[in-house]
């Protein structure tokens, strides 16, 4: 046993080790990444940990291991669950042999810029139990419970964290884990369970699925994952809190006490297993209370189930939540919702200003994010813009579809190159749609290397099969960069780890049969512009592989050999270098152009755009 300061992601990882997990797969995605990344940083003999090509593949690997009787964990962010869902439904209907836990991270309040979806809805659709810890301490314990629950009821189990719990660090008591328990891999041939051959099998699997969820509900009740505490006196207020909302109760009660609130008079249902709905506890609470306050972030899933129970019981009280308009379905919760809910339920007359700070952020400067100093994507965006200008197109008449990852930063100033963003690999499909819609100007799709491997390849194959005239620019920086530098299939062999092999995009794309394939070095602006100009003008499917390693990795290893230096006598302070590159290493200080040597990686783009030769490169080693 050791006390450690760890976050929710790390607590899940260590909980899984302690539960004897054998196989861990996943795809990086904020805020879930750290769970699997923290395992890769450890020396874990007799266990297999990997970043998979995408979440669907990751889940299938984990399910295969669980069907062979081992314990397996699969990690992803909410968008990744959307990718994995096709397989997930099928696996849910089959059930599992060894324990299978799927960790999904949701992001209420949108700290990481994707859809604010509530993945609890997926647990409902798949009839799978879902546990939601309210803190890293609970995450550690509930991960172990999840494996027990999964194995004892034969069902995959979800664990859901929200960003605030996934990224919160606190002190957790962690047990030693050692080696995973020795289990022989089993081969079970049972087509009734493991295939979907025919209506009889599928409908029986549906019955079994529902039965397993019922059994899971019994297991959850028997192990007390949800906590019900009734007040001494009946007909008072009941509070149902789920997931992270539980963590705000004490603080909210304490604040409300100043306005005459009595915490002893409240009945509490803390829901840590958010699916299946704890119907028995809910009925007891409803029987005991006249008003029930429901605290849950995003969608009113628990509230709706509670309302259904209330209807069945012919309960005549009042439910305060989202359905009555008290709370929003948008954004993260904090103690404010506890206070507002108590105020609404009990008429405490808490003044609005008690919860309202003085707003000053309207005076703050806007700080749009851009690519890092030395980022290879900067050269690609600049080259696209310049190539289109030279081909005499206005920016607003050429569609450049965007994709997920650092490459989307091309939507921002100073580039304003990319128009849209949907999901991993979607840029190439979207581009085909624009062509079929009758767009007469060139259509360009952009995506990164990891995105190409993840879900871009089927879209490209489709474009080739149907001979759709467009230009795909694959911006290959060698890493899954935006989530913090994970290895992907294209990462250089040196970093693939033991037994890993690099797959070269420059071999895949020509093999698919594209009409024209080009490679460019985005730090060489002039030749990149020429290559893009030619590619855009060619008929058929054109792919341009823009290849240069991520500057962060390059810089970290100290591999840069040159720095950009200003010649002040030549610099007329025209600021063209800043307006064209938007490089964070460039600034104007006290009337002089400055290049921060700590940030500069020697990409030379500022030198390339300077008309006065006022910037030159100097060797640093």
């Amino acid at each position, binding site marked *: 046993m050791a006390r450690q300061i760890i976050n929710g992601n790390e607590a899940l990882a260590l909980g899984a080790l302690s539960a004897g997990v054998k196989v861990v797969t996943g795809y990086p995605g904020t805020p879930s990444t750290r769970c699997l990344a923290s395992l890769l940083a450890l020396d874990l003999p007799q266990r297999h940990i990997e970043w998979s090509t995408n979440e669907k593949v990751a889940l299938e690997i984990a399910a295969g291991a669980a069907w062979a009787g081992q314990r397996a964990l699969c990690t992803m962010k909410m968008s990744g669950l959307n990718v994995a869902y096709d397989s997930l439904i099928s696996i849910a209907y089959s059930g599992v042999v060894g324990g299978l836990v799927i960790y999904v991270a949701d992001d209420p309040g949108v700290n990481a810029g994707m859809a604010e979806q509530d993945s609890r809805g997926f647990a409902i659709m798949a009839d799978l139990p879902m546990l939601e810890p309210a803190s890293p301490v609970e995450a550690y314990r509930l991960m172990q419970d999840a494996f027990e629950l999964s194995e004892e009821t034969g069902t995959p189990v979800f664990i859901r964290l929200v960003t605030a719990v996934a990224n*919160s660090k606190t002190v957790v008591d962690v047990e030693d884990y050692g080696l995973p328990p020795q289990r022989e891999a089993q081969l079970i041939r049972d087509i009734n369970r493991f295939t979907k051959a025919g209506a009889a099998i599928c409908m029986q699997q549906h019955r079994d699925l529902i039965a397993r969820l019922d059994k899971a509900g019994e297991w959850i009740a028997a192990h007390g994952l949800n906590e019900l505490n009734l007040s001494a006196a009946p007909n008072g207020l009941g509070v149902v809190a789920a997931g992270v909302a539980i963590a705000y109760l004490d*603080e909210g009660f304490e604040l409300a006490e100043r306005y005459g609130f009595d915490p002893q008079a409240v009945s509490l249902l803390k829901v840590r297993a958010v699916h299946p709905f704890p119907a028995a506890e809910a009925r007891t609470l409803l029987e005991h209370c006249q008003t029930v306050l429901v605290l849950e972030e995003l969608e009113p899933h628990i509230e709706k189930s509670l309302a259904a129970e209330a209807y069945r019981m012919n309960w005549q009280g009042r439910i305060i939540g989202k359905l009555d308009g008290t709370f929003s379905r948008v954004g993260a919760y904090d103690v404010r919702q506890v206070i507002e809910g108590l105020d609404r339920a009990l008429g405490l007359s808490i003044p609005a200003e008690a919860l309202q700070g*003085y707003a000053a952020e309207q005076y703050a400067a806007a700080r749009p994010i851009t690519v890092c100093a030395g980022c290879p994507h900067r050269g690609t965006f600049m080259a696209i813009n310049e190539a289109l200008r030279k081909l005499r197109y206005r920016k607003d008449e050429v569609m450049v579809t965007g994709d997920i990852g650092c490459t989307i930063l091309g939507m921002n100033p100073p580039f304003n190159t990319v128009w849209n963003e949907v999901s991993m690999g979607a840029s190439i499909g979207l581009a085909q749609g624009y062509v079929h819609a009758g767009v007469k100007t060139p259509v360009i799709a952009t995506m990164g290397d990891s995105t190409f491997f993840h879900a871009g390849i089927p879209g490209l194959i489709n474009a080739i099969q149907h001979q759709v005239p467009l230009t795909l620019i694959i911006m290959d920086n060698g890493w899954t960069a935006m989530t913090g530098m994970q290895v992907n299939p294209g990462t250089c062999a040196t970093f693939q780890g033991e037994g890993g092999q690099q797959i070269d995009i420059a071999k895949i794309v020509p093999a698919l049969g594209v009409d024209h394939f080009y490679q460019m070095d985005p730090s060489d602006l002039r030749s990149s512009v020429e290559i893009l100009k030619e590619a855009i003008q060619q008929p058929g499917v054109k792919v341009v592989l823009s290849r240069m390693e991520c500057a962060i990795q390059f810089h970290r290893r100290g591999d840069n050999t040159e720095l950009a230096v200003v010649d002040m006598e030549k610099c007329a302070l025209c600021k063209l270098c800043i307006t064209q590159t938007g490089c964070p290493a460039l600034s104007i200080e006290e009337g002089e152009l400055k290049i921060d040597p700590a940030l500069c990686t020697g990409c030379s783009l500022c030198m390339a755009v300077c008309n006065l030769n006022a910037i030159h490169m100097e060797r640093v080693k």
Partner: protein
Amino acid sequence: MNYDIYLVGVGGQGVLTIAELITEAAYLQGLPVNYYPTEGMAQRGGFVKAQVRLGRRFVGPNIPEKGADLAISMELSESLKAVRFLKPGGDFVLWGHIWLPTAAMLGKAPYPTLDTVRGQIERAGARLHYLDPHNLPLFQGELVPDNLYVLGAALGCSSLGKVLSVEAVKQAVRGRWQKAAERNLFALQAGMEALIEVEG
């Protein structure tokens, strides 16, 4: 004692390092702590914030509006994003560094003046402790790390000094940088002794 700290700045300034040192020091003191960083774009010169909640064994990660006892800001404009979360009468430690966004640098977008920021902090009823970035001291001929200096200042001038022991913070610094401990401890000490303009 419950004590909440709201930290803001720009990615690359070491804001999260301040929060991590506070977290580690609290742990060493046996004080319950929850540290919640928001670092989505930290590498890219974007807005960074961190919330440290001390004293409660089980606590929600987000500090409510008007909830923080102390705000620490490493960047003038970003300070404004912390104002809403500060308790009236709370301490606001402001390192007046200016990190201009490109548009502001080119004169195409506004950037707040020190007077504006000062005025907003005062209107929120906070006690402002302003640190002039020009006063950063040298250690062996080089400027000391500004984030350690700011942490030192917060310990020296604000209520943080009543919650965290200086020894625990120093121990956290030593634990993090075996080689550069001396330089960082010097920065911390210099911050604690910094002459600070107190207002409000």
